[in-house]
């Protein structure tokens, strides 16, 4: 890249990148978020305030420079995880370790962490302040971190040109004067303005047309390389996730079902849910149309999730034990699967046998 200077050279304080490339950029341990359903005085008296178990003990790592794709059905907690990572909401439990430091510890203040982690939202319109010009929107972040106004504006303009919007034409515009694709580019520029190391993209391309989606995906790939970024890429479009991700994490009802390298996972899904999800992708072959839906019904309610393995209610391979035992997410050659079939001695009849061989 001719113009890009790797962020390590200039970004975070020197020597902060500890542990070398093997050390994950971000480690999430037992992250939990329960939302209280509106509780009132009376309900407290009567008892039975319910909670939404939006994220219920999630563990994962993001390596430096990789793209971690996150897939899963609506309501499985993808966005909540992202918002937890951004510290937009406080976790009910669990910790987030960034670059070897626990977030919120004296070594890594929340403020400093926030500079290094940025987010792009799905709704390109509502993520821009309608009363600010896009240049001001982009320049806001750096200014918060002490960059003088003039300089922040200069940076905003160079970023605009970098994401393919000619600053001269676009810098002074308001969000409603841009198309969806253009707005999403602005959002990306805004996220990059603070020179983050990790960018969380929550359905960042889902609202875009296919032709525009391709443009934005290309841009994301370029920027990643140019600035040495790490992405957490959330999407329900499996094709896109497969295309962009190095590793993929599959979530189901607030839990991680499976993690693994993208190609391997798509080629050979371990978890029955992953398999079902992948086979729900429409085929692009008119001669081999899908004949039967892999799963029936909608995902259960996170207010009252099923016991044991959360997937057992819809799983074609479920046995009695699945409703009693909570599967453990275990790492076996880069693949992590939370399924009793993959857990030797779990009590499941298929436990230990390679599922794809059956």
């Amino acid at each position, binding site marked *: 890249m001719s113009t890009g200077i790797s962020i390590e050279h200039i970004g975070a304080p020197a020597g902060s990148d500890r542990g070398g490339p093997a050390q994950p950029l971000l480690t999430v341990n037992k992250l939990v978020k329960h939302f209280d*359903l*509106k509780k*009132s*005085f*009376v*309900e407290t008296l*009567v008892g039975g305030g319910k909670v939404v178990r939006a994220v219920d003990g999630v563990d994962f790592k993001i390596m430096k420079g990789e793209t971690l794709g996150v897939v899963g059905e609506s309501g499985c907690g993808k966005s909540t995880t992202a918002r937890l990572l951004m510290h937009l909401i406080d976790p009910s439990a669990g910790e987030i370790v960034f670059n070897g430091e626990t977030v919120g510890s004296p070594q890594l203040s929340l403020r400093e962490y926030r500079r290094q982690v940025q987010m792009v939202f799905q709704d390109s319109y509502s993520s821009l302040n309608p009363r600010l010009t896009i240049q001001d929107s982009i320049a806001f972040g750096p200014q918060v971190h002490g960059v003088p106004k003039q300089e922040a504006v200069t940076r905003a303009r160079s970023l605009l040109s970098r994401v393919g919007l000619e600053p001269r034409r676009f810098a002074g515009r308001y969000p409603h004067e841009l198309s969806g694709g253009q707005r999403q580019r602005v959002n990306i520029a805004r996220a990059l303005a603070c020179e983050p190391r990790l960018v969380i993209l929550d359905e960042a391309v889902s609202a875009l047309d296919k032709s525009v989606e391709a443009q934005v995906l290309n841009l994301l790939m370029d920027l990643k390389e140019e600035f040495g970024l790490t992405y957490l890429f959330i999407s329900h479009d499996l094709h896109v996730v497969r295309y962009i991700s190095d590793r993929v994490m599959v979530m189901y009802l607030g839990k991680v079902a499976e993690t693994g390298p993208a190609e391997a996972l798509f080629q050979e899904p371990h978890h029955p849910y992953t398999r079902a999800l992948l086979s729900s992708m429409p085929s692009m072959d008119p001669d081999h149309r899908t004949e039967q839906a892999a799963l029936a019904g909608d995902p259960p309610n996170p207010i009252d999730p099923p016991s044991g393995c959360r997937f057992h209610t819809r799983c074609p391979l479920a046995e009695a034990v699945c409703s009693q035992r909570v599967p453990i997410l275990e790492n076996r050659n880069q693949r992590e699967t939370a399924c009793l079939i993959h857990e030797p001695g779990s009590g499941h009849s298929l436990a230990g046998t390679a599922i794809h061989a059956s």
Partner: protein
Amino acid sequence: MIFYLLRRIVYTIPIMIGVAFFCFLLVHISPGDPLVSILPPDASIELQQQLMKLYGFDRPWYEQFAHWFWRALHGDLGTSIASGRSVSTEVMRAVGNTLMLSCMATLIGFLFGSLFGFVAGYFRDSWVDRVASALSVLGVSVPHYWLGMVLVIIFSSQLMWLPATGAGPGGSGEWAWDWAHVQFMVLPAITMSVIPMGIIARTVRALVADILAQEFVVGLRAKGLTDLGIFLHVVKNAAPTALAVMGLQLGYLLGGSILIETVFSWPGTGFLLNSAIFQRDMPLLQGTILVLATFFVVLNLMVDVLQTTLDPRIQRS
């Protein structure tokens, strides 16, 4: 549902206490001596103090509040300084009359308001809409007490079609729902209905336009419903909100009738308030306002509950 109701009621309690305290404060923020009005010009200081004591004005305010509130809870709002009658009987009698008038006015306002609103919302941006909208803006813009005076001049003094003042030939005590009595209500009710009419018309117009812009209306059309069928759907969708607005308007009329009742000598709470203010009859002022505010709070509660019941979209827990 029952939880919702309970919660709503429990939530009302602190508000009611606050309201009561506010009413109580009214006496204390008012300058001048509440006894002035009944004291003869040359009452001796001794007589003044004697009456002070009699009415309990010599004790510290918190004691007075506790006392007053406790008694208010038992329905005893004290004694009117001016008339010597119990405030609660005075107010209750007046509330009945005001309620009657306000309900009538709300009804008129609701009928015409929703008529204008529906027409305007249905034929949005046509001349019908403009006329109906103009009428509703008129409704919220006209000083209604003035309108009342104009109506009296025209219909009572000049044409002698309708009586000008009072609540029936034999007073409100002998009220009956026949023309001999109802004619007394016509002018004040029409005057009073002007504001709710305007507000309901505006609300309904926005509601209808909003509903008509929703996708489901296309859905209804797509399944072959005629305009009449769609109209029924619009009505059912608009009803909870429109009724809620109507309920709130009734509340506003209950509390806002003072000017109209003064103009028409209608023996309601507004009339009572007016004389309470001008005679500086603080217990009466306090009591009337407390009762009206209570009505308003309860009405709000009812509207809320009603709306929740009527509108399946509102989640009930």
